[in-house]
């Protein structure tokens, strides 16, 4: 199997995690050489829709927004990381047939364990340095993240922007924290080919959580990348790109055989 088997006309809609800087960062830039990669900024995270979205208070609102503004016709692979993975799941349970496949990277959104199990690290409370410690296999290699006061040396305007990002995350995900209890009961509807990617060293969302979530999705394959944390597309871009292109190529091959 080679990378050329990915159809370059295909579109990859990649929904970003909460504290990631805008744009096709890390592996997303690599993937953009093979297919059309779009990384829209979520309303509330510094977009022209921020004001219109001020009353949106659930991830379902974001799912509704993306589904209602998506162009029809073009084959689209839906992808999301962390918080963006949660949005992607909300879209997939509503309209799985609109997507060719689903790629989830350590997604939030579904609570799997008991009430006293803290499944998701509290990124809204933790200091940026703690988020980096928990989110990276090698914290010293951290890049591509933006939080209040991180990276150091931000000016007031940049800090305000980072606070506004956090404020948007609060509106969407404060309570229940980083999940929606109404999502799990519909996961069986996600019948499209699905790839769940986790970093072996992710301590924001544990790999075990991602693995068990994959088990609840009807057509999911689970891949765990060694030596990487919560942001494999930033920390291990080559391995991430290889996993995604392999998945997309296999899926197309399977589709051709059907």
């Amino acid at each position: 199997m080679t990378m050329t088997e990915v159809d370059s006309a295909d579109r990859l809609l990649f929904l970003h995690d909460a504290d990631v800087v805008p744009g096709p960062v890390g592996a997303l830039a690599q993937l953009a050489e093979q297919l059309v990669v779009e990384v829209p900024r979520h309303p509330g995270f510094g977009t022209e829709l921020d004001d219109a979205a001020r009353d949106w208070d659930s991830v379902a609102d974001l799912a509704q927004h993306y589904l209602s503004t998506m162009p029809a016709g073009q084959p689209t692979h839906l992808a999301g990381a962390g918080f963006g993975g949660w949005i992607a799941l909300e879209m997939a349970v509503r309209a799985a047939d609109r997507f060719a496949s689903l790629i989830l990277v350590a997604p939030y959104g579904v609570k799997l364990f008991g009430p006293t199990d803290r499944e998701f690290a509290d990124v809204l409370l933790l200091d940026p340095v703690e988020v980096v410690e928990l989110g990276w296999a090698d914290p010293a290699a951290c890049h591509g993240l933006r939080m209040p006061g991180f990276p150091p040396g931000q000016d007031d305007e940049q800090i305000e922007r980072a606070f506004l990002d956090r404020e948007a995350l609060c509106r969407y995900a404060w309570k229940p924290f980083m999940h929606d209890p109404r999502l799990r009961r519909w996961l069986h509807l996600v019948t499209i080919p699905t790839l769940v990617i986790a970093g072996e060293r992710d301590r924001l969302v544990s790999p075990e959580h991602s693995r068990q979530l994959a088990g609840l999705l009807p057509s999911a394959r689970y891949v765990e990348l060694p030596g990487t944390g919560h942001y494999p597309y930033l920390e291990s871009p080559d391995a991430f790109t290889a996993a995604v292109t392999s998945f997309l190529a296999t899926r197309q091959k399977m589709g051709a055989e059907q």
Partner: protein
Amino acid sequence: MRCYHFTEMPYPYVPPDVEEAHRGLKYFMPNRYYDPVRGYQLYQRYLDEYELADELGYDLMVNEHHQSASTLHVSATLSAASVLARTRRGRVLVLGTPLPHRESPVRVAEEVAYLDAISAGRIICGFVRGVQGETWPSNQNPVHNMDMFVEAHDLIKEAWTNHDVFSWEGRFYHYRYVSIWPRPYQQPHPPIWVSGTTRALVEWTARHGYTLCNLLGTYADTAASFRLYRKAAMEAGLPEPGPDHFAYLSFCHVAPTEEQARQVGRKLMWYLKQGKLRLGAISPPGYSSPAAAVAALRGKLGEVRKYSFERLVDEGVMLVGTPDQVIARIQRLYAETGVGNLIMMNHAGEMTSNEVRDSLCLFAREVIPAVAPIGRHWQDDDTSWRVENDRRPVHTVLASALS
């Protein structure tokens, strides 16, 4: 000037290394460090002090915080019920119920009405947004804090003043049938006080004609905040607000000599110890404007906490000294701010009950009679804060010492 006695009812027995390990005493402190027997003794002691203060002629204030060794008041209305049962005379200021953190505004309306009903109207009802950190124990969304505060207030006021069964389908609160029993004793409802410094809240308080309370601000910041209030009140077409529309919370300890007062009064600094709370705890996203959040990140919130004891005494945030010295400071406080209610934190940390009682008695004997007349004839006083004398632009101030 009306004088109120207040203690936060701290639990002063958490070992310093534990406090250090948990970044302070608040919100994230495991309760294995609470001893039920010592806790009982503390509650009895603090209630005894409220009882003494009432006998000495003070009014009384209670508050609430959560999951905190610095405060054992867990519900301002519960504490008010306890204090009412122990006292006969003083007004009980409930400052305050943190509206966004209480699930049911109707229940707040009922509880305050109950307190007012059983005491023949001794209640002053304070409403607060809740300091930033309260977001964590209550788990209420900080983004909606101000909007929830306003809607909860509107619903409570409706519950007190609408005497038919009504429905409330708002943004945050939903009830199909509301008609609370009992109604408040004071009609249409008890006086309402609000504490805070954010511009939107100060202006809202002014437009409603409620009493605005500044907690532990410098006199300059307090004056600035009150000027903002007066301007908003006048713009709303209300009469010029008198001293009864303003309150100030300070620390207080008096003794026969300055040296004695400072020796014991220094213990009040316990309350201002800098916790090492995370930025997220001090400034949860969306609670404040982005500009205020940046100020928090740059360490500019709670600057009073960084002042030395000597500076706090000089600035009058600590009313510590002989009765004559403290009378002079209170006169200065009135001259600079126009405040008519003085709430005194007469206790913090490891101050003994005898130390608190000695100060309460001396203050009641020598200071209260001297300061009681202050502000009674405010319309005859030629002060800098009278609206007609005030030509300076108004500005908002950052939160003072609380977190």
